[in-house]
């Protein structure tokens, strides 16, 4: 695959290649990965491109190794990433917890496929919980960004590197198999964020100073209490500064549909059809899944009669919406367990059914 990162020129590109190209444009110095469908194009692209640019690429022996290689590279302040999918991201949970505790700017691209277990390679949103809650030990929180178009795959890859380094926090780009395999016209532009100074913490060899230790191991409970309070202070700051979502037609809406990622495209089409028929339907699309736009959703309960959550899983973001609404309005659910997003007509019918109730 040829590198297509000519700036300011529209190119038709697959989501996976768009993510890989954007990572290169963002200055990613190291890529470590292990193949898994439906994201293998990312590693394939990186294997050639990183060598060409004299940057690092390693075909890791496992996802365990890959994510820990990222940790190693990030400990030196380098921009580093890995990419994987569902059952293999499951293998990385331990390291993600370490990276959170060690406050390292790990960037992980997670292209969701069907689960649980081996599942299948169809698109899915079954790893919302895996990304936003996670399966590592202890109290920690990842930043999670959810694109819905190939252009957003680029924009949010840029943002993932920025936020990871700005907050020294693991950041996950949560795409799905449909976005990974989909082609759309995109523009790269330049990496739009400032470079973050890491000279205060990165491991560079203890030249002219004492050795730095990046560690979470705190034998004393009191020390761990201090650390966790500080860590959660940072999370609060991220919530205040970085919560992001898209909102359309909510001002007068009776029903607001909450949907993220590729299914939100069909929700938009359904909303347009409903509006044409005079139904007051709006949409709220979370772009950051953590921090989640809970506050805004709660504000909307002032005017909105009902919420509808549309997901391709068995109801994972549903829980966050219910927590945000906090009983102030009914929250309905419409899903496909796995595969492509629900069809537009089916979403329209569900909306009409809810309105009638």
């Amino acid at each position, binding site marked *: 695959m040829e590198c297509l990162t000519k700036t300011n020129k529209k190119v038709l590109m697959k989501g996976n290649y768009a993510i890989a190209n954007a990572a290169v444009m963002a200055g990613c110095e*190291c890529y470590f990965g292990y193949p898994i469908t439906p994201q293998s194009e990312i590693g394939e692209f990186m294997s050639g491109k990183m060598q060409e640019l004299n940057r690092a690429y390693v075909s890791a022996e496992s996802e365990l190794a890959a994510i820990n290689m990222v940790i190693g590279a990030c*400990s030196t302040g380098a921009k580093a990433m890995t990419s994987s999918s569902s059952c293999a991201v499951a293998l990385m949970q331990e390291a993600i917890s370490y990276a959170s505790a060690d406050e390292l700017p790990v960037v992980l691209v997670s292209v969701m496929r069907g689960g649980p277990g081996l599942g299948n390679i169809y698109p899915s949103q079954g790893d919302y919980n895996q990304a936003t809650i996670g399966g590592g030990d202890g109290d920690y929180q990842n930043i999670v960004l959810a694109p819905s178009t190939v252009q957003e795959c680029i924009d949010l890859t840029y943002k993932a590197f920025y936020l990871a380094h700005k907050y020294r926090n693991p950041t996950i780009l949560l795409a799905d198999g449909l976005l990974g395999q989909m082609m759309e016209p995109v523009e790269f532009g330049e990496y739009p964020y400032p470079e973050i100074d890491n000279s205060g913490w990165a*491991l560079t*060899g203890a030249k002219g100073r004492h050795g730095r*230790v990046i560690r979470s191991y705190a034998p004393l409970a009191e020390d761990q209490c201090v650390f966790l309070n500080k860590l959660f202070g940072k999370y609060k700051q991220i919530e205040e500064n970085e919560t992001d979502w898209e909102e359309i037609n909510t001002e007068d809406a009776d029903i607001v549909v909450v949907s993220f990622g590729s299914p939100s495209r069909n929700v938009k089409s359904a909303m347009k059809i409903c509006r044409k028929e005079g139904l007051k339907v709006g949409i709220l699309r979370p772009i950051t899944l953590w921090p989640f736009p809970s506050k805004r959703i709660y504000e909307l309960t002032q005017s909105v009669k009902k919420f509808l959550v549309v997901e391709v899983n068995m109801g994972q973001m549903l829980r966050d919406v219910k927590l945000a609404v906090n009983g102030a309005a009914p929250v309905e659910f419409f899903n496909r367990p796995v595969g492509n997003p629900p069809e537009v007509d089916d979403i329209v019918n569900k909306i009409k059914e809810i309105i009638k109730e």
Partner: protein
Amino acid sequence: MAVQTFKIPESIREGAKFSFCPGCDHGVAVRLVAEVLDELGLTENTILAASIGCSVTIYDFLDIDAVEAPHGRALAEATGIKRARPDKCVFTYQGDGDFASIGLAESLHAALRGESITAICINNTTYGMTGGQLGPTTLLGQKTTTSPTGRNVEYYGYPIKIAEHVALCDGTAYSARVSLDTVANIRKAKQAIKKAFEIQMQGLGFTFIEILSTCPTNWKMTPQESHERVRTQMMEVFKPGVYKDITLEKTV
């Protein structure tokens, strides 16, 4: 006649006090690493990937840059460090459980890739920090808290000979097994560690030192008895020696 004065290596953190059990060889091993870093002038150019087990505390004693690694993943992290900063001296300091049980894949693949990293593995035939359970190097017949009647092949299988396995990897430039049971062997151990770091800095490939060590607490022995065990039992199975040295092969 020159007077040799005993002093603490520069690479040891000021005021650091080893917290290892009396008679444990970890303290000697850490000191040897510090001396080698001093002598090679690497202290200010080195990054350590630490491990899990008794070995983890090394970053409390060495005044160098270090990052912790999840259990078994030190060589994956070290790979990431070295690939990101190829001009740095990068090493790991692990126990046998970390290197050869939970981390065997990471360890051997780092060797197979020929990463210019030095890995130091303390082999004390048991999981020390968790209270002396059976590990990958536990000797046949050895009693541990999870092999109460002794390690037998039928039930537990065989211990692993780490230095030999690492030497078989084509990316390995140097693989040696040393012990710390006598002053002479401590000197040899230091030479091996030094050689490994030197080869790393020449960028010739993966370098590995397995250090046979004591665990008096879990072996329930005195320090003297422990070193006697290293000599009479461990060395019988884990024979000290240089298993690979490509710098010698080249000159032959």
